[in-house]
């Protein structure tokens, strides 16, 4: 039990130190967060707006079209009779 409490205390101490460190370097932290936001925003814009806009439409569904080959085959068959 003491072992777990010791680990928890050590973890809490680490967090405190980290937060303290971040607080001491608040300017750089804010600068990093702003840069991170810019990169993330840019990535989202590129992936979901720029690429979607640039997407070349693909004809994936089936298109009903006149089968010219079948028509000619049937016509040849008809003329052969």
């Amino acid at each position: 039990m003491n072992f777990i409490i010791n680990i928890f205390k050590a973890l809490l101490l680490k967090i405190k130190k980290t937060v303290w460190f971040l607080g001491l370097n608040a300017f750089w932290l804010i600068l990093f967060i702003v840069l991170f936001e810019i990169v993330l925003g840019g990535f989202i814009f590129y992936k979901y707006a720029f690429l979607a806009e640039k997407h070349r439409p693909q004809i994936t569904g089936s298109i009903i079209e006149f089968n010219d080959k079948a028509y000619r085959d049937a016509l040849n068959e008809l003329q052969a009779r």
Partner: protein
Amino acid sequence: METNTKIYTTLFVLILISLLSVMFLIWPLFEDIKKSSENLILTKDNIAVLKEQALKTENFENNYPIYGPNLQKIDQMFVDLNNPVDFIEFLETTAAGLQATSQISLPRSSPKQTNQNFIIFQFSSKGSFSNILSFIKEVESGPYLIELENLTIQNFQENQTQAASKKNISKDYSARQVEAVLAIKVFTQK
């Protein structure tokens, strides 16, 4: 209030606000962006398909005066699935014209059920061998699009002896009375 308590409370509140904003504001917004992007791509694809379809239809419409009369002729080559009487009459008339009897049996399963574009008629006929051959030729060159699936021909004159039969084969085989059973595959209109 102690300074430490103030710090912890502020920290807790800030973390809570950050988590809640991520869960209920940023993440749904991100999902919306994702969905909108996918919808945009799908809509673009659909528009392209519709444009292509419109182009093909327009081309067909422009060429229809050329295709039209031939299409009607081609259409008549296929048997009407709901009413194959014309085809049956054609078989009977052709057989009667060649002095051959005719017996037609329709398929048990409907092509609509099996999603086929053809039906197979069992046709049996009795007549001279040459007339049966003429019948087959006439049916094949007739107005309907057919394919002979199977043909069985057997001797019909039972009272003849084996020797006489052999003699007849060498002498006048074409005049022999035979019974023919044909499986005729007839292509139908969809």
